[in-house]
């Protein structure tokens, strides 16, 4: 996005040379420059993020509404007489028009109130925060392991490009990308729990557990998540660094007689930041959202499990709240990645 704008501003050759000559820049030139200022670009990206979030909230609300099945019928089961169903619908406010319910739901969320669960009348907000912290433990530990590992492996692959270490890494990562995460999960359970018996299953954590106990409980789900995101991040890191290493300024550095380490650290790395950060952010988002499946496989009481349970009983406020949260995590992480790319671009940081 930012690169595109840059070419637009870079195109008017006569205007640029006018500025170069030190002649007073024409009004259009000044406007174009302030349009490309760092603050403006970042503010615009954030505004876009917020707009996206609103659009997502509409989609989620509408989508959940459109789901087949009905809470009242599911809840009452055999006793679902038309009168009883109507009573429950009225009690939950389902007789009001959809736009009205959407607006009051949105208004509540803006004030931090996610509503109450239909099935157990608990506050959805409280449940979400509690469950989310468990999920973030899972995702966070996976990220802490996978990010350094991916960047390290990516660099090794570059260093031994087209030689055996690179090929081995490449084949293993392709295999990992090809397998769905639930399948990897079941494979790990089969091997480590059933055959070797060295790890726990299910990976359920309780309130009273110490951090150490929790960590040993989540070994398998973490291993699954790491396998899934590692390969993608590693491959993207490899290609981003390779791309930079083949550029003319790296050749210049080489012809200055600098050491390989200095070339990578001082000349390649600053230019590889933006693509690598983008990939990491995308994968973090995939990690947080991907926990849903993994949590179900490993019976881990995180937010994914919470949402899946709510879907089975048609507990709409919970499903909508969780959905919105996932969307928000995705949008915010992508926004952070874009802002880092903007900041990493010297042309935007130091305008003419």
């Amino acid at each position: 996005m930012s690169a595109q704008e840059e070419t637009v501003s870079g195109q008017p050759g006569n205007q640029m040379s006018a500025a170069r000559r030190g002649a007073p820049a024409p009004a259009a030139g000044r406007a174009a420059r302030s349009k490309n200022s760092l603050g403006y670009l970042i503010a615009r990206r954030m505004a876009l993020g917020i707009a996206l979030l609103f659009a997502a909230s509409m989609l989620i609300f509408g989508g959940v509404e459109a789901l087949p099945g009905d809470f009242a019928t599911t809840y009452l089961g055999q006793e679902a007489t038309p009168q009883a169903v109507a009573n429950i619908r009225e009690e939950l406010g389902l007789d009001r028009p959809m736009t009205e319910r959407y607006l009051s739901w949105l208004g509540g969320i803006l004030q931090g109130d996610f509503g109450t669960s239909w099935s157990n009348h608990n506050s959805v907000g409280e449940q979400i925060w509690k469950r989310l912290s468990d999920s973030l433990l899972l995702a966070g530990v996976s990220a802490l392991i996978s990010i350094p590992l991916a960047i390290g492996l990516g660099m090794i692959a570059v260093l031994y490009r087209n030689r055996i270490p690179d090929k081995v890494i490449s084949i293993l990562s392709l295999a990992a990308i090809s397998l769905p995460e639930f399948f990897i999960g079941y494979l790990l359970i089969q091997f480590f729990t059933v055959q070797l018996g060295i790890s726990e299953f299910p990976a359920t954590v309780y309130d009273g557990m110490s951090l150490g106990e929790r960590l040993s409980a989540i070994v398998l789900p973490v291993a699954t998540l790491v396998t899934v995101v590692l390969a993608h991040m590693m491959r993207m890191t490899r290609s981003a660094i390779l791309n930079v290493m083949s550029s003319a300024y790296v050749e210049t550095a080489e012809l200055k007689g600098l050491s390989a380490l200095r070339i990578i650290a001082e000349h390649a790395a600053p230019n590889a930041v933006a693509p690598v950060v983008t990939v990491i952010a995308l994968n973090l988002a995939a990690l947080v959202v991907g926990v849903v499946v993994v949590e179900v496989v490993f019976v881990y009481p995180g937010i994914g499990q919470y949402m899946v349970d709510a879907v089975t009983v048609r507990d709409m406020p919970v499903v909508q709240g969780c959905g919105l949260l996932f969307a928000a995590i995705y949008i915010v992480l992508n926004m952070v990645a874009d802002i880092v790319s903007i900041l990493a671009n010297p042309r935007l940081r130091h305008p003419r």
Partner: protein
Amino acid sequence: MPEMLSVRNLRVEVTAHQPDGSSSRLVLVDDVSFDVSKGKVLGLIGESGAGKSTIGLTALAYGRGGVCMTGGQVLLDGEDISKLDTRGIRSVRGARVAYVAQSAAAAFNPAHKLGRQVIEAAFRHGIMTREEARKRAVYLFGVLGLPDPENFGERYPHQVSGGQLQRAMTAMALCANPELIVFDEPTTALDVTTQIEVLAAIKHAIAETNTAALYITHDLAVVAQISDDIMVLRHGKMVEYGPTRQIIEAPREEYTRALVSIRQTSREAARPDGDVLLNIEGLTAGYSDVDVLQDISLSLPKGQTFAVVGESGSGKSTLARVITGLLPPRTGTIAFNGTPLPPARKDRSREQLRRIQMIYQMADTAMNPRQKIRDIIGRPLTLYFGTRGQAKTGRVKELLEQIEMGPQFLDRYPAELSGGQKQRVAIARALAAKPELILCDEPTSALDPLVAEGILKLLLRLQEETAVSYLFITHDIAIVRAIADRVAVMHRGRVVRQGAKTAVLSPPFDDYTDLLLRSVPEMEIGWLERVLEGRRGNQRQSAAPIEMERS
């Protein structure tokens, strides 16, 4: 005393890997020997693929891709650098031998300030302290005529112009006080008016620092200004090697003579004007909120060549896009054969589209690499005339004859052709539509001089045979002299001068045309000094615009 650089029987090969897994060895440079002494400049000249850059890089013990030296010696002050280990090579690069690349814009790291990059080699090799190196950089910025030398190093690469970057790259090479500098086409990517300044700055800096230099270029007129000796290369072999004066004024070899005489082709004065084919009135066009073309009016007579000349960014290619209808103008009209053309391509009839065809600078990107030549040339035949089958093959063969290529090319793919042949196929494709006007957008500037000469001759012959008109976009005054009937000079989106060739190219000139014409290198020793002297005289009198152009 040994020479600064002495190359003996150099042989360089590259291992080419075939898709089927086999590999073969190609000889890039074979049996080349030369000497360069302190304070002297050797020009290496030849077409692309002649091995010029490969030879230059062996002076830094560097090979791109799988290129490696397989024979001979490269003696730097008597020491064979091809025998050095990695550490030894690193101590030569940047410290004793420096390299100036063709595209400074790509060769500078966009993430760091210019000053830091310029002093890096001197400082990292321990030749001087950071502060000493900075002082020397400021001195060199001054010698090279860069604005505000004290603070120039504080800028980032994107904050200065292309000509300034190229001079900064020279400063970067000179900073560590190397014994030898390799200049690899340092002015090829620049406009002529900028090239002359960079050339002068390089020449001045070499004299000032008494460094030895290798100067690589494909332009004999440029190398004539700067070097003491010249070596002509072809297909990796030495053709002729001697003092500059002898090569320019009394070349011994056939090939050198062809290179020297290339700029001397020219056509007789413009023919009498016929009916007007294309008439453009008050045209303004641009992208987003910027006008790239402002108030352009010109008219092109039938059967003639109309050359549009100007520097990069002057709006030449945009003009072609507007005429084809790819970019509808904001205001103004285009009339073809007396009837107005709809501004947008989608509103034009197929017949209107057929009459205007286009040839591009990069023939290989303008063709589908998966189509055979018969399909590339045959496509317009089917599209505009509905020709198919035998008739189509017959017509394609005729067209191949016209562009001096035989029917054996029918089933080849573009990748199997040379650059010149691809451009010929592009011409045949344009010709297949039987157009009345062909827009030629720098069709020869990516080609080697001798090949380009062949293309120009072909275009002139086809014009005589088919009475087609050309709108010929170029930055090269020599081409204008060679083929144009009428000329328009463009500068910053405006036509500053137009008319018959003889009138446009003879005095009195406007300021810009004067600057442009004086900046074109001539194959004459001492031309650079003469022009610079003339310019300085001009500036003393009035010429503020030239000064503004500079910085």
